């Protein structure tokens, strides 16, 4: 295990300008009874992935509120991460052949990490399955343990979940991104949303010149409607389905499609999907398939801001934070009703939900025909994100959990 050092400071007052003084004072009120009490977050990676991205922004905010919050990252060998990758896929419903050796590797790595850590913070938050067995190291000092699951457990592989269930059931609470992901457990289960940071490079305001230059760089016409899906090249994001929906829309509107995602060069499966997408696009000039560098927050920000409509046509989804990113930029969103997306898209209020290629195309056509409705959905969506899916709200939710758990004892 190693503690992650967070370098950058994020002054709370910067958020007050966006959210109002009252909202920030409320965070201070909630933080006051928690000052001096230890909080520890544990996950399996310091870089890459949504959890690390959120913790990187959450800890500086906690520090601003004078909370004693630490972040430790689990260490393990390739064999452990091979097993947990297989577990991750199996929990998402992928086929998996249970091998007793896998479970031994998982337990041995958790045991090694357990011996290195005091695990004695008053509030222990364990993220995702990898460190779930650390609960075996729970001290008798009455500290509070909560398990935060970021993945879709709606159809888990039975063998893997039965194995994890024994550990999770011994926590004081579990948190999921959607009610659909919750399990039958003897402990309280709470709804916890991922969050975006309005001040991060991916979400902050951009100069219009930068947006224009980004469009020019990718030869996208700023004068015609731009439909955009930002996601890695993954079949579960259904990029081919997006192209098919675009083709239906194209019969009625002279629009362009942007499919932009992280580079597939180090992801063999991603490379295969990218090829499928290129084949489906068949060189059509108005379909822009963009392989972004692994970390390109400003380009993502610019492409979202330049879009007329943002699409998220996933077949399965954990939460789909790209939806919140688009809503924060007041963009109308058409998205699939899967995973955590319906939490963000309240149908006909903060966006439009669809259940098929044809439905997606219809909703896009409807918004292109009614720009005033598209504008209203975008404005509502912005308020929805401001109220529920910002990093400040996430910290508030954590503090509320700590206060509620302490009160329950």
């Amino acid at each position: 295990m190693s503690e992650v050092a967070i370098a950058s400071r994020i002054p709370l007052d910067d958020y007050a300008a966006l959210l109002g003084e009252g909202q920030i004072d409320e965070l201070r009120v909630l933080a006051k009874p928690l000052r001096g009490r230890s909080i520890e977050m544990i996950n399996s990676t310091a870089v890459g992935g949504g959890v690390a991205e959120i913790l990187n922004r959450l800890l500086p905010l906690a520090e601003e509120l004078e909370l004693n919050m630490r972040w430790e990252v689990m260490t393990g060998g390739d064999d452990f991460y091979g097993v947990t990758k297989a577990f991750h896929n199996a929990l998402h419903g992928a086929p998996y052949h249970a091998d007793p050796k896998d479970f031994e590797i998982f337990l041995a790595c958790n045991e090694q990490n357990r011996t290195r850590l005091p695990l004695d913070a008053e509030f222990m938050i364990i993220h995702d399955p990898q460190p779930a067995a650390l609960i075996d190291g729970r001290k008798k000092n009455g500290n509070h343990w909560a398990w935060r699951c970021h993945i879709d457990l709606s159809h888990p592989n039975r063998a893997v979940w039965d194995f994890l269930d024994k550990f999770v059931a011994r926590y004081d609470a579990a948190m999921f991104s959607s009610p659909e992901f919750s399990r039958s457990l003897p402990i309280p289960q709470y709804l916890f949303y991922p969050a975006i940071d309005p001040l991060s490079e991916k979400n902050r305001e951009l100069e219009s010149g930068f947006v224009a230059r980004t469009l020019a760089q990718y030869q996208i016409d700023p004068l015609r409607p731009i439909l955009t899906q930002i996601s890695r090249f993954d079949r579960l994001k259904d990029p081919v389905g997006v192209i098919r929906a675009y083709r239906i829309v194209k019969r009625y509107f002279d629009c362009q499609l942007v499919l932009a995602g992280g580079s597939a060069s180090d992801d063999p499966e991603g490379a295969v999907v990218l090829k499928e997408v290129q084949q489906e696009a068949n060189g059509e000039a108005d379909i822009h398939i963009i392989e972004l560098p692994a970390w390109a927050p400003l380009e993502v920000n610019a492409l979202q801001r330049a879009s007329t409509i943002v699409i998220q046509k996933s077949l399965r989804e954990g939460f789909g934070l790209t939806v919140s990113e688009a809503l924060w930029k007041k963009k109308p969103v058409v998205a699939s009703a899967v995973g955590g997306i319906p939490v963000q898209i309240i149908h006909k209020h903060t966006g439009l939900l669809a259940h098929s290629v044809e439905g997606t195309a219809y909703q896009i056509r409807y918004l292109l025909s009614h720009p005033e409705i598209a504008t209203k959905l975008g404005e509502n969506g912005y308020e929805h994100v401001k109220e529920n899916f910002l990093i400040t709200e996430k910290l508030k939710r954590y503090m509320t959990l700590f206060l509620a758990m302490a009160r329950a004892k």
Partner: protein
Amino acid sequence: MNIAETPFEFFTVSYLTRIGNQSAGTLNEFLTSLQQCSDASIFHHTFQTLSSHHFLTEGFSNDFAQWAHADASREDLAEQLAALDVRDYLSIAALRSDLCRVVGEYCTEHPAFSEQTALERFYFCESVEVTLPFGLTARSLEEFRDGIAHLSHASFYFHFLSSRLRLQLQTNDFSHWLADGLGLGTLADSVNRIDIYTNTLDSARAKVLRLIDRERRKDE
């Protein structure tokens, strides 16, 4: 200037959403769950949703009506559920009773629809409430105005809306104190009449502040 003997103490509230163990995929299942779910669940999907979705001022009333509209595709039922105004209820039991009556009558009148599978299931959740003093008190109308202007959304919601259940009166914390603490009954009534379904928390707050300012000008 009136000075109240008992000061108004501002609080804030924060909610966790606890995932319940009930969900519904048809109107019949929905009715059964409405009858059996906890009071905290009825509160969450009616009162509390008005706070977390306060910015929706057109056609959004509560989670139950939204599900009937968007997922069960029963517009007529959605209208009836949306028409229930939480301000008419002094207890969750009375609100639950009316919700069950509306859904029950609909299922009786439309037995074919009551077994149809909705696009998405409805998951019953509960609100777990944590309240803390906001660190502000007021004895005069001026201090009261300053306090309201500074509140967070959650704090404003706590005093203006969820207080109705706590007080078990058809009023809110602000109006209650204006009438009882400062003897300003007319102002209290005006504040109590502000429509929370057609206002956001910000616009409702702005109206409260305007009403207070108008009252203060009378003293000038």
